[in-house]
């Protein structure tokens, strides 16, 4: 029996790492008396998985997890019991039974984000839009990644243009610019919003005020028959 649930990660909870979030849930399951299935072996682990990791400081309205149950419990009850014991900022929005053989981790293909910031110099919406248009019209957007393996540092460069599905100006008010973007996410190709910010800094004239940057995940998508759809 598997429950698939959607939840939020907001407020200060956004400063908690993926691993720590796993532990928050593990303990919340016990407090809420959720009959989670445990692995066998020396160090039994509860059988559940979170869809994708968020970087520290990124909030979200659309996180997902799969939980294997040992005994039957209504998804609605699962949701209610957990919401009582979860810390502020994490809230289960929806829970359903899922008969997916694949784990949520392997299904995720796209994610939408809000990128908010102010700029060092004033810019008009038109200027932003034209910057973004020329940014997207490039055939190559090269992301440089450093990988450390022990003491050796290898630099890898990838053209990630294809991993940006959309990027546009949502609003430009009170000196705060808000962009919306849809990015490839998951095992078949991944781009993070903070990496998009890196690219914007490199390829455009937009002078992002580093300190003001706010990232927020809106939703995750799976792909079914070639079309993006919500996980539940």
């Amino acid at each position, binding site marked *: 029996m598997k429950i698939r649930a959607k939840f939020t990660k907001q*407020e*200060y*909870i956004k*400063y*908690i*790492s993926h691993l*720590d979030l796993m*532990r*928050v849930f*593990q*303990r*919340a*399951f*016990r*407090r*809420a008396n959720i009959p989670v299935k*445990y692995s066998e072996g*020396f*160090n*039994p682990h*509860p059988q559940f998985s979170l869809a994708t990791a968020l970087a*520290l*400081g990124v909030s979200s309205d659309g996180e997902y997890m799969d939980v294997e149950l040992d005994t039957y419990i209504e998804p609605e009850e699962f949701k209610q019991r957990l919401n009582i*014991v979860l*810390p*502020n*900022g994490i809230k289960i929005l929806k829970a359903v039974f899922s008969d997916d053989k694949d784990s949520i981790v392997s299904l995720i293909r796209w994610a939408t984000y809000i990128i908010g910031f102010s700029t060092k110099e004033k810019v008009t919406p038109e200027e932003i839009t034209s910057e973004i248009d020329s940014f997207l019209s490039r055939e190559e957007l090269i992301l440089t990644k450093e990988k450390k393996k022990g003491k050796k540092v290898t630099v890898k460069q990838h053209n990630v243009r294809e991993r940006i599905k959309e990027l546009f100006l949502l609003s430009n008010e009170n000196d705060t610019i808000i962009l919306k973007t849809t990015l490839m996410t998951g095992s078949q190709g991944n781009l993070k919003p903070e990496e998009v910010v890196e690219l914007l800094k490199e390829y455009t004239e937009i002078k992002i005020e580093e*300190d*003001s*940057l706010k990232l927020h995940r809106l939703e995750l998508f799976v792909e079914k028959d070639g079309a993006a759809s919500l996980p539940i």
Partner: protein
Amino acid sequence: MLDKGQFEKILNRVEKPARYIGKEQNISLKDITEDTVRFAFAFPDVYEVGMSHLGMHILYNLLNSKDDIYCERVFAPWTDMEEEMRKNNILLYALESKDFIKDFDFMGFTLQYEMSYTNIINMIDLAGISIMSKDRKNDDPFIIAGGPCAYNPEPLVGIVDFFVIGEGEEVTLEIIEIYKKWRKSGGERKEYLEAIASIEGVYVPELYNVDYNEDGTIKAFYPMDAKHPTKIKKRIIKNLDEAFFPDKIIVPFIETVHDRVMLEIFRGCTRGCRFCQAGIIYRPVRERSMDTLLESARKLIEATGHEEISLSSLSTSDYSQILELVNKLIEEYKDKKVGLSLPSLRLDSFPLEVIEEIQKVRKTGLTFAPEAGTQRLRDVINKGITEKDLFKSTEEAFGSGWSTVKLYFMIGLPTETFDDVMGIKDLAYRVKDIFFKMPREQRKGNLKVTVSTSCFVPKPFTPFQWYPQDSIEMFNKKINLLKSSIKDNKVTYNHHDSRLSYLEAVLARGDRRLSDVLIKAWKKGCKFDSWGDKFSFEKWLEAFEETGIDPDFYASRERSYDEILPWDFIDVGVSKKYLINENEKAKKGELTKDCRKGCTGCGINKSFTGGVC
């Protein structure tokens, strides 16, 4: 209060921001009224260390169980956070309300280890409070301190306003009661300090004077006004079973050192190891009943969802009903996948079947603390364990599938010779041989023996308090001897920094002249001294140099029995005569039996009631 926007910007730039956000499950959130007494429980180390401290959880919940007291937490920000705070003029704040500590009534430090003292100064400064008591104004918080190191409070005199000696549960409430009256009266700071000086267990250093002899030793220590007590008697909770124990504790978001439910099964210890300060200052032994413990466990697991319960005490297996307790806990939590851990377990007195039962949920390595390499030296320190015990336990453990063993030792113990040091190596090799003597098919896993040595620090209120510590050179000689003789890929050798242990000995047995050194060292940038990469011995040496204080006077000098020691004015209940007698017995290698098997006359039962004796 913190500016939220600015705060978030900083959080984005620091390592492990979750250390600084508060918001954990089971924190106390309160409305603040005019009558609220605000208490900041301050732990002078990072969040992960502080949150692992059971005493904090007890006091936090106890204080917050009172309507008109609001206790919050504050830890030492890591250096990256401190840098941001100083750059952006952010004062030290409390995790719950994000209000500044400066606006609190009390900032209460717990003194768990000497090498956290520079962090205390740093935190007071970061809070925007004067680091010297004499410079503090009426609306500044009172800086107070308690915990095991407060049994020799003198090095912090001048910085801390007053100390609480002993167990804090009752006395803290008494202090706050008097505070409420004082606050209403609008009196002077000094009036409050005078008023609490008569509470048992409270030490207000500015009411006391010290005269010195020409050789630097103490000539006299006395209250300036005869109305104040000449001896400060430690506080203890008479009946632990009726004492407050929280039914919920804060659940940290990030991994801490002890991230689990800690059940305090008893206080005190009757074994009488002669190097152990805790074994003396926490006497007499007082147990919690099994029913109370099971009930606590139930509530705490329900409130936290923790995956582990640990039984906390100085010597877990000495609890009078340990087997029943362990069996009941295993029974109750097996299905919930809650594991059980028993730190400070003496394997010589614990059946292996039970340990195996415990390990069915979560398997960990085995730990032994023989403390010394030879039987002669183990007799000197009254450790009790024999080689036979150790070998028998390891043999059994290997037979049932264990393969990792940790062995803890001390070097520099009184009367130690190089033969004793080599005994450490021999012991480790014997353990290894036991493993490989087993038929191949019975061996499970890959053998790993870890040998750790720490450097002996003579502590106040132990039979060894008069003893000179080994010099750094001598420690290093012994460490190098072990390093060069332990050459086996199955045996790993770890050791502590001898320079740190040296400073620890200085501060542990220091007097009030040392506070100048502390401040100097802090001004030079010393903090997080026990965190290897932050430690600068050179700066400390400069601080001694510049204040004209000789550290050897405190660490490396043998004291005579009739010298007035800086902590002699504290009454821990165990008589000095007993300590002297124990030291003399040590020299002869004579053992003192566990006093559960018959009183050995330490004297605690004369001045303190309660407990098992």
